[in-house]
């Protein structure tokens, strides 16, 4: 008996050891990763770096034009995606009503499923699609506009899911009250649904910005990688992520500057994620239903 108990205790300790070791390795790996990048790239980050234009293919100078290009791409992507995602989420909400027809229910299920699949499509395939449609068929060439539109397609599944979730969290009592007061559909939407869903509308947009900021492959051959200051929406431009790639792979001696750009990109993404979490928490502070984690 004692032998058996000892064996069991050893097994118990083994599993605990493996579990703790696994967690420790994961933490160590990512800490190393972030610290290493900070050590390599931290020294070069300065105000001048942010406001100067790149010189000598980015080996010296700053990243002002890259930041402007990135901001432009993000603004376009969000600008295109928000109306589409909002319209889709409103349609999905309508189709969930008790009075909805069978066809619209079926269509809603199809839309949800196809968005789910769209969310898993590799970004390089979005790049191919964007190149064929926006650059070629629409004749936009390598441009900020084509890149922004491609990014909009990419973030659409994520954004729609967040918006849809927001509408689904509206308490049914609120809807019943609106219906009982004989409010029109548009009044209900404007004064009941949208304010109630606001936290997840905001979070959905912020998450989409983070996703779009992280994207590289879809932009390589839609917005291109010209590093001059963009002067129109039809100019080719490069995002911060493409800048990191170009400096690291195509510019001899660009590694040091690529480090700073990569570090800046990482900090921006972390800041945006934290902002999303913080704002969601704050906006949901008096909503009892559900935790923000489920929405993620």
């Amino acid at each position, binding site marked *: 008996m004692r032998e058996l108990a000892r064996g069991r205790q050893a097994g118990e300790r083994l599993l605990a050891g493996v579990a703790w070791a696994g967690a420790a390795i994961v*933490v160590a790996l990512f800490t190393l990763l972030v610290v290493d990048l900070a050590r390599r790239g931290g020294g070069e980050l300065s105000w001048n770096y942010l406001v100067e234009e790149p010189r000598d293919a980015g080996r010296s100078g700053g990243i002002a034009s890259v930041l402007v290009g990135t901001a432009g791409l993000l603004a376009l992507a969000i600008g295109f995606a928000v109306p589409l995602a909002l319209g889709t989420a409103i349609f999905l909400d309508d189709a969930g009503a008790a009075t909805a027809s069978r066809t619209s229910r079926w269509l809603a299920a199809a839309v949800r499923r196809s968005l789910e699949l769209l969310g*898993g499509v590799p970004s390089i395939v979005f790049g191919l699609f964007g190149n064929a449609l926006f650059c070629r068929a629409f004749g936009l060439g390598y441009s900020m506009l084509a890149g922004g539109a491609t990014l909009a397609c990419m973030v659409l599944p994520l954004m729609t899911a967040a918006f849809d979730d927001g509408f689904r969290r509206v308490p049914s009592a609120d809807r019943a009250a609106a219906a009982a007061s004989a409010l029109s559909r548009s009044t209900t939407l404007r004064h009941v649904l949208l304010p109630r869903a606001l936290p997840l509308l905001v979070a959905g947009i912020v998450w989409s910005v983070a996703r779009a900021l992280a994207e590289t492959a879809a932009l390589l051959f839609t917005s291109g990688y010209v590093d001059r200051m963009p002067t129109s929406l039809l100019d080719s431009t490069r995002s911060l992520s493409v800048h990191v790639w170009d400096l690291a792979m195509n510019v001899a001696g660009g590694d040091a500057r690529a480090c700073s750009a990569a570090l800046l990109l990482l900090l921006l993404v972390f800041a945006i994620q934290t902002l999303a979490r913080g704002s969601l928490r704050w906006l949901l502070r008096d909503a009892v239903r559900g935790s923000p984690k489920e929405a993620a």
Partner: protein
Amino acid sequence: MTALFAALLALWIVGFVVSECRPAFQQIGLTRFVTDDGWNPTRGAYGVAPMVAASVLIALGALLLALPLALAAAICQLAYAPPWLARVLRRGLELLAAVPSVVFGFIGLVTLVPWLTRIAPPGASLLAAALVLALMVLPTLTLMVEEALAGMPHAERAAAAALGLSRSTVVLRLALPRAQRGIHAAVLVSMGRALGETMAVLMVSGNVVQWPRTPFTPVRTLTANIALEMAYATTLHRSALFVSGLLLLATTVALLLVAAWRIAATRGEPTHA
């Protein structure tokens, strides 16, 4: 109206990619993508088999490396770590899941590749790509595995505690078997991400079109091939790149469908609690 656009977007993407593939299908034919010896579009060779093998091996390798760590870390979060620590870990992983893939690729390029070069030159290789991808899929994989393991009903947890079952019994005999389908789904989703990943792989795999003979062979994946050649490809060459894009699209969608089916099956399963 907009919903229709969203629904159609998926079809539109497939349609566009397929229509761009047509010249390649007509003039090269499907079989030559498999039988041609090597990839050399300027000389009319369109064999993608070595790149498919590289893509698959890198994704499999990444999952093999990441899954044990993800399992151990998830079990630790769930059964061993105090709640505050588990929460910190989860927040950290959520943050890391958003790290851009180009950053993973860059870190791999400046730290991992020089290190591998000393062991087995030239360093940029199948193994380097698998290691970087393992790191990249790790946060989401751990979060998904943890979620699957946490699916154990409260009544069951209470019953296990009442019976005085040890932690290892609860984890290995109760939580793990129940979470099996969820873990399968997590693996499939991560596999889709690993297969479709471009930047991280492009930066560390060496990009030589050849059969992966050893883990240290520099290889080129399907995704990297598109990223490298799309900028200058014209006519038939361009069309051939779209064919490889279509192949990627079909594979990842198939993986996602199986994953969704696995998850749906878990929900439909009657609970014995």
